[in-house]
């Protein structure tokens, strides 16, 4: 369980050559369930996008304990980032993940199609396979996007605020899916969230992003009442 799956080594990240985060170092080990937390505007998204490979580091290295070309990470974006104009069913969205390793010009074979259906079943949405993606509820959409990420057959699952804008019932279903994937299948999970209660309940470690740097520790350490009060003020005692 101490096999490093993601190593961020003295990394600086930013835009147009200007760093937002500097000298960031931490390791996420195989099977870990970690959360990226911090105040708004602290650079969580920048760090997340750097880990995803969407922005190149200005300095330092990000190493993966797997071959990114052969096994890309599973990425779950926020559902609002996708345009509802695309006429896609839930199954077609998941199929995009299943087809990730199919070379250009090659058709998507039966095996990949079966994998897409299995991933949809794994998030409890087999019945919604032929439903238009945009007619699903917020929670269902988010679970479809988790199924799409699983269809990549990843070793590392990266989720961007998966419970944002969903009702408590849907939130419980999403958290249940992610927790089972981590606990039962040993999938390494890194989640961006603002939801402190959720993080406290299910996440093992926290990467706290603030003032241009990041610190990693256990959830208990990083989310202690005293620490939260330091960051968010007295109101944090009720969180």
């Amino acid at each position, binding site marked *: 369980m101490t096999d490093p799956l993601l190593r961020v080594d003295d990394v600086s990240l930013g835009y147009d050559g200007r760093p937002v985060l500097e000298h960031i170092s931490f390791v996420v080990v195989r099977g870990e369930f970690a959360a990226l937390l911090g105040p708004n505007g602290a650079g969580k998204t920048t760090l997340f996008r750097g880990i*995803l*490979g*969407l922005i190149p580091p200005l300095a330092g290295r990000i190493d993966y304990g797997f071959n*990114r*070309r052969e096994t*890309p*990470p599973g*990425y779950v*974006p926020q559902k609002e*980032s*996708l*345009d509802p*104009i*695309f*006429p*896609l*069913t839930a199954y*077609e969205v998941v199929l*995009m993940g299943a*087809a*990730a390793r*199919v070379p*250009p*010009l090659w058709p*998507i074979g039966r095996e990949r199609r079966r994998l897409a259906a299995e991933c949809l079943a794994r998030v409890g949405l087999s019945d919604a396979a032929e439903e*238009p993606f945009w007619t699903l509820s917020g929670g269902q959409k988010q679970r479809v996007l988790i199924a*799409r990420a699983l269809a*990549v057959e990843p070793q590392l699952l990266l989720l961007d605020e998966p419970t944002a804008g969903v009702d408590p019932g849907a939130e419980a279903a999403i958290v249940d899916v992610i927790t089972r994937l981590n606990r039962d299948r040993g999938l390494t999970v890194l989640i961006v969230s603002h939801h402190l209660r959720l993080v406290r309940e299910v996440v093992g470690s926290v990467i706290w992003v603030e003032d241009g740097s990041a610190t990693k520790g256990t959830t208990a350490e990083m989310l202690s009442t005293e620490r939260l009060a330091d960051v968010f003020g007295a109101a944090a005692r009720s969180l």
Partner: protein
Amino acid sequence: MSILTEMLSRDFLLRDALVGSILVGLVCPLVGVYFVLRRMIFLGVALPQLSAAGVAFAFMLKSITGVHQHGESGERILAMAGSLGFALVGLVVLAALERHGRETLEARIGIAYALAAATSILFVATDPYGEAEMTRLLKGDIVTTTATNLRLLMAVLGSVAIALVALRKELLLVSFDRDMAVVLGKRAALWDTVLYLLIGVTISFGVMTAGPLVTFGFLVAPPLTARLVTRHMLSFSAVAAGLGACIAFVGFYVAYRFDLPLGPTDVALSIVVLVIVGVLREAVRSVRARRLRR
């Protein structure tokens, strides 16, 4: 009925024009699907106009250099090069500005359209022959399509259609979720370039065959209509292409039957179909909603 029989007969005088028209109607919507999905419909106005400006530029070049001796085929190749060149350069510049520019996309497209429309006229202002040719082109005079032009059109637009079908999973992923595509190791910029190239080729051949108005009409109206009635990506593309081909055929019939210009007839018919399908869809929706309320 006799006109329909005449149109379908092998020795129909305008058979090449009919087939060319259907081909443009079939392939333009396949490209237009990405205009609709990527929300760049206005680009569908600007690019055909840029392509037409390229044709005008070719006429001006020919007029300045006095290259008249190569006959119609040489003239057509020059016009084709101008059309394709302007469409592709326009696409590249607009795509580059999308990443680095500060103005809104609408502003850039508006400026590109205005510039293209103005230069289309200015390039041929001193050449009466060129001016007449441009007027013919802008009206969408597809009836002058020859057997040679048709063979070229079939080869080019056929290749575009095959490429769009064969590369649909890559083009769809990059269009739907660019970040996901990059995370999966896909070269998003390369696939954008491939799509732009297919768009540029389709538009320039569409403009050369049917004019900018018809090309824009077929790029946009059939996909918008298909979007109203389909829920799968594959059926969306198939219905858009099928509708485009049907409209091209019916448009040809109407134009031939009532002696109307083909280009505007096709465009008007596309919009009529869009409005009818839109109204029917809303009617079906309200009936369903009323039933559910009971």
